[in-house]
């Protein structure tokens, strides 16, 4: 456990350059600077590794990098998405706090592969501790001559800067993030064109998640096959999971893909005394909820979670026991999406508002018998009809909560109160 992105977590001075180098850090970067590792070889290893983007969509990282027009003249950019805002998700924060050099090295390698000489790490505005750790790490890397222009006489150039957000979940969407980085409102762009062609300041840009970048140095140092073999087919390697909610010891765990959910639950101390499992949101608040029986049979990888009816998403496992009122849980999520919709697309702007108001009305004891059908029809109109995936992430949980826990919603509508004892 905790072998790659979180491997410094129990060390003294986990975020320091010295600690990173004793764990083999910057070995790959030095190899590159010595001219011993070509971009083609790196792309090949990433492909063998089966590394899929850890930000939620799971797009193969090596393939994404190969889309960049590396030989095109002019500035190109590498951007790291450290906006971590999906409810239930908090492992990027630990990577940034405890292993910032892995992100720096991963981004530098990406810059080399794609011929992009400038990188930005977009860190959410509230993450001040992670930001300071990253700033310290950047200073160490510059002082050690590992970043900058003509690094160690290699002709390789890479400058890296941290950027801070100011509170907007939507800026985690990659094109909203670029808008924000340009100093604008964080409203997602229409695609195409894709960032690889028209990205930051109109230049070719590749955006990856914090954990994606942090995984790269270790993969290249130990080999793509080594990484792939840690996981299961179609889900290479290990992945950081945040396990939160009704468990004894909520924590982040970096474990092999394919680990049974029941084992992960044990790692988190299991349920509290006398409680039983009700449901699990496996990939962050935007992914459908899975009822207990199915969850106990799934393994933590893309395919198994999909088979169970949800998505691995950002790897944020929200555990709910029998004390949880599912109506209240869904209402809280609906409020979040209503608050965070950027308002550009009518189905999303209106739909998130509708869903929240209807759920709120149910919670206020004013629910009507037709409300569940109304919720289902609103969410259905939101799916696939918008510029970005926020609307899908707002809609899918609604459908799944109602499907799996319908009797709780019906009870609330009929009696004006929760079916769950502890939630008056």
């Amino acid at each position: 456990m905790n072998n790659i992105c979180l491997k410094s977590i129990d060390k003294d001075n986990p975020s320091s350059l010295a600690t990173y180098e004793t764990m083999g850090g910057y070995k790959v970067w030095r190899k590159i600077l010595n001219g011993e590792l070509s971009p083609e070889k790196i792309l090949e290893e990433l492909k063998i590794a089966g590394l899929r983007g850890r930000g939620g969509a799971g797009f193969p990282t090596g393939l994404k990098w190969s889309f960049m027009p590396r030989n095109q003249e002019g500035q190109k950019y590498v951007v790291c998405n450290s906006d971590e805002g999906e409810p239930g998700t908090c492992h990027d924060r630990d990577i940034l706090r405890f292993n910032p050099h892995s992100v720096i090295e991963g981004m530098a390698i990406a810059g080399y592969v794609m011929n992009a000489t400038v990188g930005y790490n977009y860190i959410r505005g509230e993450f001040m501790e992670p930001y300071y750790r990253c700033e310290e790490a950047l200073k160490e890397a510059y002082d050690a001559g590992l970043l900058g222009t003509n690094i160690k006489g290699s002709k390789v150039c890479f400058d890296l800067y941290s950027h801070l957000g100011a509170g907007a979940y939507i800026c985690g969407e990659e094109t909203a993030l670029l808008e924000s980085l340009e100093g604008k409102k964080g409203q997602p762009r229409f695609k195409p064109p894709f960032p690889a062609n028209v990205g930051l300041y109109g230049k070719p840009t590749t955006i990856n998640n914090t954990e994606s970048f942090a995984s790269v140095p270790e993969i290249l140092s130990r080999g793509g096959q080594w990484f792939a073999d840690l996981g299961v087919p179609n889900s290479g390697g290990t992945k950081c999971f945040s396990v939160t909610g009704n468990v004894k010891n909520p924590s982040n765990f970096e474990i092999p893909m394919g680990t049974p959910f029941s084992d992960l639950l044990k790692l988190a101390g299991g349920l509290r005394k006398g409680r039983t499992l009700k449901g699990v949101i496996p990939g962050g608040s935007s992914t459908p909820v899975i009822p207990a029986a199915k969850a106990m049979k799934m393994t933590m990888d893309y395919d198994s979670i999909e088979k169970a009816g949800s998505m691995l998403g950002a790897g944020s496992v929200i555990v709910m026991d029998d004390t949880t009122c599912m109506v209240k849980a869904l209402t809280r999520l609906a409020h979040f999406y209503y608050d965070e919709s950027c308002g550009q697309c009518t189905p999303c702007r209106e739909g998130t508002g509708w869903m929240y108001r209807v759920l709120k009305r149910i919670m206020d004891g004013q629910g009507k018998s037709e409300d569940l059908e109304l919720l289902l029809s609103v969410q259905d109109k939101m799916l696939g009809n918008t510029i970005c995936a926020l609307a899908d992430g707002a809609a899918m949980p609604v459908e799944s909560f109602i499907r799996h826990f319908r009797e709780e919603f019906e009870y609330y509508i009929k009696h004006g109160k929760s079916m769950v004892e502890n939630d008056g």
Partner: protein
Amino acid sequence: MISDQAKKEIDIWVAKYPEGRQSSAVMQALTIVQKENGGSLTNELKQAVADYLEMPTISVEEVATFYENYNHKPVGKHVIRFCHNISCMLNGSDELISYLEEKLDVKTGEISKDRLVSVKRVECLGACVGAPMCQIGDQYYENLTKKRIDEILDGLK
């Protein structure tokens, strides 16, 4: 309007972006002047940021209203931003927010009578394994209990 110290800080951010792209620094510029102004923005400050970064006033206004972390009305000396999203909710955040409101005799969104604190409900702050949690200034406080909240409040001056 913008102090020399704040200008110095803003310049550090401007230097991170390419020539002519100083508007990339607008979010940090607003954060910096807001902090200096005791936690909220005014029209004059937004105008000053627009002038300093050579941006249209309307663009600065749009940014200032789009992002959650800017305040447009005065706030307490300390703003307690309490997460009420799912992982925190499952661990009792609502109860703690009520406790905080009662203890301080303020509602979320309001300032205490001595103007020392205001309380805000916020969405996930990305520290869900430490739920329930809140942010005060740059600092996160995790695994909160009533007792821990008492201690934190005692420490606020």
